[in-house]
């Protein structure tokens, strides 16, 4: 590369690199280092003389901590609810929206509105709608003859799936846009030949559309799996991990350990463990793509 080009590369890449180092790499390295120390009180944070190397003891403690492991389990369960529902719903919406009908742009705007709405506003809105005490959803269900409507965010068994559902509602627009682009790129000749061969719409969807957009589906599944673990704001504003521990996911537990009980090293260890879980899932997904993704 010519010197001038190299200079230009350095100039353009440096701002991103600096930002990445300051706000991503350095905090991650700090978190790893903190997780290997014994800073588990505020006074420990100030008194550097008491700072000591704790090795992997914080990790061992987390693995034997029942509530912590249960919170990881709930995070995985949230992912199982969230990822399939999000991608299935996004594909269906994308199929619907690629057709032409009246008010297409208005409908697209309506679908995109939750994505750009502040999470606190979303929490207030759904809190009102799903209020088991006079909320419009349960009142409608009662009118329809359902005598014991679900407790939604206040049910031990319904809190987590309800949160996942609200999260799907909020995030589906972005996935829909990506799927729309993928579906539009499927060559129309493939549909024509399938039609000539007598394939129904469903068969065309399963045998033409899905294989052709499978790389996009793979990318969306990986990214939505990663983002499913980043649900602190939604859970905090809607249920704060309750009722009891019903929706206490890993990020809520990590926050509480760090900022309520000041166990910074212990919380960092759990955060790094969560990172490793996400990486493991992503590796498994990469390996499995050979079986179902068609390039």
């Amino acid at each position: 590369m010519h010197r001038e080009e190299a200079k230009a590369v350095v100039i353009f890449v440096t701002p991103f690199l600096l930002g990445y180092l300051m706000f991503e790499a350095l905090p991650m390295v700090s978190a790893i280092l903190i997780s290997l120390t014994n800073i588990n009180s505020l006074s420990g944070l100030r008194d550097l003389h008491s700072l000591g190397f704790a090795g992997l003891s914080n990790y061992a403690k987390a693995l034997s901590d029942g509530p912590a492991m249960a919170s990881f389990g709930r995070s995985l369960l949230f992912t199982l609810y969230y990822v399939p529902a999000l991608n299935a719903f996004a594909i269906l919406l994308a199929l619907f929206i690629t057709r032409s009908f009246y008010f297409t742009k208005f409908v697209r705007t309506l679908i995109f509105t939750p994505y750009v709405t502040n999470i606190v506003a979303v929490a207030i809105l759904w809190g009102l709608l799903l209020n088991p005490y006079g909320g419009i959803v349960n009142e409608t269900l009662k009118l329809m003859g359902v005598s014991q409507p679900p407790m939604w965010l206040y049910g031990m068994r319904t809190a987590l799936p309800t949160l996942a559902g609200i999260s799907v509602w909020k995030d589906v627009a972005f996935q829909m846009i990506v799927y729309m682009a993928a579906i539009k790129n499927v060559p129309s000749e493939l549909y024509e030949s399938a039609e000539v061969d007598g394939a129904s719409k469903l068969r065309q969807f399963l045998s033409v559309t899905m294989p052709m957009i499978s790389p996009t589906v793979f990318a969306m599944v990986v990214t939505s799996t990663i983002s499913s673990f980043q649900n602190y704001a939604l859970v905090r504003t809607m249920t704060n991990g309750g009722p009891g521990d019903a929706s206490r996911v890993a990020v809520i537990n990590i926050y509480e350990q760090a900022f309520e009980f000041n166990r910074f090293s212990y919380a960092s260890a759990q955060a790094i463990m969560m990172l490793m879980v996400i990486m493991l899932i992503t590796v498994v997904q990469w390996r499995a793509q050979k079986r179902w993704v068609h390039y």
Partner: protein
Amino acid sequence: MNVRCLALCAVTIVIGMQVFAAPEEVTVLAYNQRDESSLVGALYKDFTKDTGIKVTVLPIPGSTADYQRKIDISIASGDTTDILFATNPIDYVKNILNGNVMAIDDLAKSAKLDLDATYGKYINRYKGKVYGVPQSPTYWAVFYNKKIFDDAGIAYPKGYWTWDQYVATAKKLTNPAKRIYGSFMCNFDAYSYMIANQKGVDGYKPDGTSNFDDPAFVESVQFMADLGNKYKVQPSYLEADSKKLPAESFVTGNYAMCFSGTWLFSQLSDTTKYPRDWKWGITQVPVPDAKSKINVGAVSYVMINKNAKNPSAALKLADYIGKNIYKYTNEPPALTKFNKGDYNKLFKDIAVASNGSVTAANIYDAIIDNGLGYRPEKITGSVAAQYKAIILKEVAVTYIGQRSALDTCKEIKKQVDEAINATAAK
């Protein structure tokens, strides 16, 4: 320039620095009820007038839990704000254990302040040292809406009474057609174990483990759940939480009675922020039975940041608050020399502010001269913060009817014991 001239210049400069020096300043991290827009704003102004020390208030919005969290993080990162508040004994101990605050014994000695003589039994010593100036001890009482009682033709409650009588009265006053509940209680942790506390049952067993599996705690949790779910005399936990009913909901006029701390005087006295056209009354707390005649309460504290820029001025303000806050908020003070006459004068101020709702004698009889003992309302100890968090989290499951009180109390004991073991292992 000769020596005389130089000397004259030096003296002029020194005198000028004294005269034109920036005034002494104290900074305060304040929660809602202690910020400049509250009744305490006037206290800060009067302190400046009396001492010449400027007060800069840094308000922290949100709940007192948000306030405490902010303190922890701010001070850990080197914040030099001078004064912070501990709204209850749990936060008092938490601030000490976190190394947020300084002991004030030596400061008080240098300032010739005799804290014991002024604050006596309200002083809270931790390992022999004082870390905060007491202010506004709360007592609990039942406040009632006289209009609702008059409309229902029920006599006002007075004197000794039991929780069974409270529930019976509340049932007579509850009127769903008019959207009136007979009772209102907040969702603080202290409510969950109120009956156990009144029976004198401790939060810890003699061996240091949690005592929450004691039948008194089970009874307590069940009682609180039944008020909303079984007797339906107050909003259920589900209704209160989903509608985000605030702690001062009594002032809305929709509740016949409210079992609350005397911090409610502050809201009841503020008819600008909480206008109403009805009169209120006050009576002593109900008790479980004749053997359990106890009232509960908590003392809050003004504490000084370990990194304070101006600790001496901060102590002056803390002491000023401790001695004078009752004049602004009508909350009883934590002063040893506050005698019956002083209480009556304070309560007279509350009575005047109540617009004829109550007399000084009513208040004195309800909270001071009620024949009841006094216990701290909170479970403290080495895992006070975890204990509180676990109680609040777990009792909610019983309150929404998804687990029995017995199972909840066992779960609380299990989790608190784990926290105790984890703390001991540190």
